[in-house]
């Protein structure tokens, strides 16, 4: 019988901040989204104050209780590196690890003896070496492991590990747990089933598989089979191929001038081109959009434009194309709130020029390799097109960005000699 586990970092972004900042331990802490807009990670102390996931931070600050809450802007270079550390600690101890998201990893524990103690040691090692506290859920399928993880998180008497391999334990848990707790059952689906009187996981598991397929198609049937202990979803050890690359941002300050909007879109194109080259791809389709703020009472304007382009991964070409499209949708006298670019129609990068090509592919590839090498060595953004702007007035607010402790030499953790 296969055995899966899901290990996930408790309030991962907050834990990554706390790893290097002891003054943040034991106090309520939230990490905010890009632009310092919404709370996207909360410690238990912050949750206890009623701060909700995704809650706009300027609204939360109106509550007196939230004034004492520590907050940080999101520091993705740090979180990415701490996630890498968590993965590597696990990969050295477990046969197979699937990095499912930045803070969740599925493990294949099939055939390992004394699993509960093994998982406790895993937790201790991740905590000690990668500095991230975690919870572990164990089960015969990924869906059950995910549910067990959720229970381990909610019930502190389990000390971070919940094992749902035993069918009797599972039956008790299913009877007490709402269907909406299940991975793969969305809010709408749960609502639809609730109307039919199916509210607990036990109700759902009891249904005839044919009925589930009728109600929720084959996807729902797979969730039910997994909950019944029949493993249908194997570990995925390769990320799926990219279908699209999107780089979009809401602006820190509303953008009114053509120059600023053009700079922002040029910067998005630069980032999108970097992602393309990391994956060794060229894009043949490009789209650009911009819109005003739908919530602040401003006049509403939203437009997008797409075009087929000669396949490329060249930053300068993509900027030129993106700005050309942007010019067609630009209207003056609006306050732009958000913009973005999307690339699609991917093909593997070509080393030689194509027949009828209008550009020198070899020269471009060499220029881009040099650009990427400089930025890899001296830090992202060291060398960038002038079109992306020097001042970046449009850039997001990041008022409380913690140091990039592990990725920038000038931002290392500082210890006071005693």
């Amino acid at each position, binding site marked *: 019988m296969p055995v899966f586990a899901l290990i996930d970092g408790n309030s991962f972004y907050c834990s990554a901040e706390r790893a290097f900042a002891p003054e943040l331990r034991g106090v309520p802490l939230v990490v905010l989204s890009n632009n310092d807009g919404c709370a996207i990670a909360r410690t238990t102390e912050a949750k206890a104050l009623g701060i909700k996931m995704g809650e706009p931070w300027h609204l939360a600050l109106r509550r007196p209780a939230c004034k004492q809450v520590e907050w940080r802007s999101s520091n993705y270079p740090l979180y990415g590196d701490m996630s890498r550390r968590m993965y590597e600690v696990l990969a050295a101890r477990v046969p197979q690890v699937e990095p499912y998201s930045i803070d969740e990893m599925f493990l294949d524990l099939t055939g390992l003896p004394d699993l509960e103690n093994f998982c406790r040691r895993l937790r201790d090692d991740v905590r000690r070496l*990668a500095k991230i506290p975690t919870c572990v859920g164990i089960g015969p399928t990924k869906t059950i492991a995910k549910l067990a993880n959720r229970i381990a998180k909610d019930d502190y008497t389990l000390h971070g590990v919940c094992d749902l391999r035993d069918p009797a334990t599972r039956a008790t848990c299913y009877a007490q747990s709402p269907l909406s707790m299940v991975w793969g059952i969305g809010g709408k689906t749960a609502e639809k089933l609730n109307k039919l009187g199916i509210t607990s996981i036990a109700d759902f598991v009891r249904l005839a598989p044919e009925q589930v397929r009728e109600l929720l198609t084959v996807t729902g049937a797979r969730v039910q089979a997994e909950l019944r202990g029949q493993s249908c979803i194997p570990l995925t050890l390769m990320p799926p191929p990219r279908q699209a690359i999107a780089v979009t941002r809401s602006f820190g300050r509303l953008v009114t001038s053509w120059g600023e909007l053009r700079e922002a879109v040029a910067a998005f194109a630069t980032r999108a081109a970097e992602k393309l080259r990391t994956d060794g791809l060229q894009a043949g389709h490009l789209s650009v959009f911009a819109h005003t703020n739908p919530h602040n009472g401003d006049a509403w304007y939203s437009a997008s434009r797409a075009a087929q382009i000669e396949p490329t991964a060249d930053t300068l070409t993509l900027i030129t194309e993106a700005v050309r499209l942007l010019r067609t949708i630009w209207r003056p006298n609006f306050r732009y709130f958000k913009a973005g670019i999307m690339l699609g129609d991917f093909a593997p990068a070509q080393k030689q020029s194509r027949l009828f090509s209008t550009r020198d592919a070899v020269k471009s590839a060499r220029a881009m390799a040099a650009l990427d090498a400089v930025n890899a060595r001296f830090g992202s953004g060291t060398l960038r097109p002038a079109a992306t702007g020097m001042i970046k007035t449009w850039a997001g607010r990041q008022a409380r960005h913690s140091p990039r402790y592990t990725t920038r030499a000038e931002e290392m*953790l*500082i210890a006071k000699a005693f």
Partner: protein
Amino acid sequence: MNYNGGNTTGFASPAGDNLEGRIDLAAMLDLSRPSRYPVRVAGDALASRGIFAGDILIADAASPPAHGKVAVVMLNGAVLVGQLAYRQQQWWLASGVEGTAPIAVAGDDAEIWAVVTGLIRTQV
């Protein structure tokens, strides 16, 4: 051309079959290990241990704490580096400055964060 000591144009280089890669200090320090963190020193209190302000410590959370080792310690909200001592069944942080009393690494807000395994000084 990219000359490496072996690829001569006229006489064949006698070193051609014996070329080795240069010493890679980054590999020796092995900072890519998930348990290793670089830490910058502030202050000269550990001068007696040969550790000065501005030094970069290689702190390894996988290295077990031991009496006499230098370690990065998180204590009552501060990040400190000092010498570990084990006495009376508990860990203490001993100061590098004579006459300064050691402090106990104990309580809710105390953690031996990582043991220092190496040091880099870029300016001597």
